[in-house]
């Protein structure tokens, strides 16, 4: 009976859902001690960054936002733009060297392109070993 109760209590514990692993991914599964203030994901003591952030949100913060609606985006974008344009335009113009005609051959869904459609489970590499 005790074992069953124990199992029931175990079920009620909120588990840390942080993705772990490098080649084979899994879930942490330890008992959670906090909930990430940014994405509300439960995190265990080992995975909680300062402020209870989950590793995903903590890492994302280190790279600035990619979301143009975020107020922090403008500042980063402006700085990046000045830095990058100074570098790119005087160096090589790769970002603009493929014209519409070039790009047209690489649309998914044409029967002529190998594999047809394009979805999240598709391979993305240019070359295959």
């Amino acid at each position, binding site marked *: 009976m005790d074992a069953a109760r124990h199992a029931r209590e175990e079920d009620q514990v909120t588990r840390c859902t942080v993705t772990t692993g490098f080649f084979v991914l899994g879930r942490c599964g330890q008992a959670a001690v906090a909930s990430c203030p940014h994405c509300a994901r439960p995190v265990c003591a080992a995975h909680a960054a300062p402020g209870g952030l989950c590793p995903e949100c903590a890492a994302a913060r280190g790279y600035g936002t990619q979301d143009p609606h975020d107020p922090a985006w403008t500042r980063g974008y402006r700085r990046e733009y000045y*830095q990058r344009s100074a570098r790119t335009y005087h160096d090589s113009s790769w970002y603009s060297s493929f014209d519409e005609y*070039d*790009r047209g051959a690489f649309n998914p869904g044409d029967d002529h392109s190998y594999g047809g459609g394009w979805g999240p489970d598709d391979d993305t590499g240019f070359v295959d070993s």
Partner: protein
Amino acid sequence: MSHGRMKHRAAYVAFDRFPSSKGSGVHIAQMADELFARFGGGLLAVIGGGDLPRYQREGTREIARFDARIPNLIDRAEAFSGWVADHLAEHWETLEVCHVRDPWSALPAVADGRRHKVVYEVNGLPSIEMSHTWPWAAPSTLGKIRELERFCLERSDAIVVPSRVIGEAVRDRGVPGDRIHLVPNGAEVPGETGRPADAPKRYVIYVGALQPWQGLDVLMRAFARLADLGDLRLVVCASVPERRAKPLRRLAERIGVAERIDWRFTLPHHEVAAWLAHAEVSVAPLTGCARNLDQGCAPLKVIESMAAGVPVVASDLPAVRELMADGEHGRLVPADRPAELARTVRILLEYPAEATAMGRNGRAHIEEGLTWARSRARLADVYRTITPAPTGG
């Protein structure tokens, strides 16, 4: 657990989904693991999507995944380049080595004003390979891609290639020979593997992706010539999703072999090893196209089949000859010749003792020279050559 921002000394960048069941997934895991072991961690910037987290932290390692849904390949590749530039910028002052796998990953890494070294791992050249995967691409477009490749190769400090044929292709693009380093692919020799529960009694196996240059159509035509071997089945362990198999399944119907083929899709790596180990013969029917001949390839399926101790029948291409010897680890047959392929498979089936010996030799061949440990040691040498100070780890 690490806090706040991490500053890395190493980064590995690839326009590939990671992890994945494809050969590239295995390769990236081995190479990136070696890089990060030598530089006390690092940033892995790859493609995500699906339910893969956008960011992950594992000790001193970070994985960042690009998951913008941009259908056009060139648009997507350029957006990826910009995203990589943003991510490398955070480590610009501390970065010592950036290891890249394709031109769009390389472009932000070889930028002016860098203090880090760039290792460009060339497993294939998009300017050659994309003419096969995207037949609508005009020669002038492929020319631009070739120019982009040349630009990135020229500015890289070391080029790593998995086969001599690819090394030659890189040399043809004007890269000096002393900058090109051969780091062959490897395999892990698996221990005893249980027979898959749903495995047929006797089967020939194909493992890998399904692009036209893999030659699975040649294998199917060969298999049609083995129809008299009633109990023999063909198992295809495809590393790509099921809908990619549509054209090949239609072909199988048309030539009357569909009923004798068992399809498996995107199996995890260890399950594929079990399927390989219990097969009679593993076939790598690569076609004799420009992609396989001029650009070269380093088919992991050949190495992994040998590691599993199964005799290999493969197309006689220079890149394959680098990996295995005819009559010793299996048989080499002319590419694109179904009749020859069928005959060779039939002979191996008729002489099981010889076939078993070839499988054993193949496994010994891998143990002696083509393990991942050995590949990684060679990669570590490359890092040592280009970074002046001893690199801690």
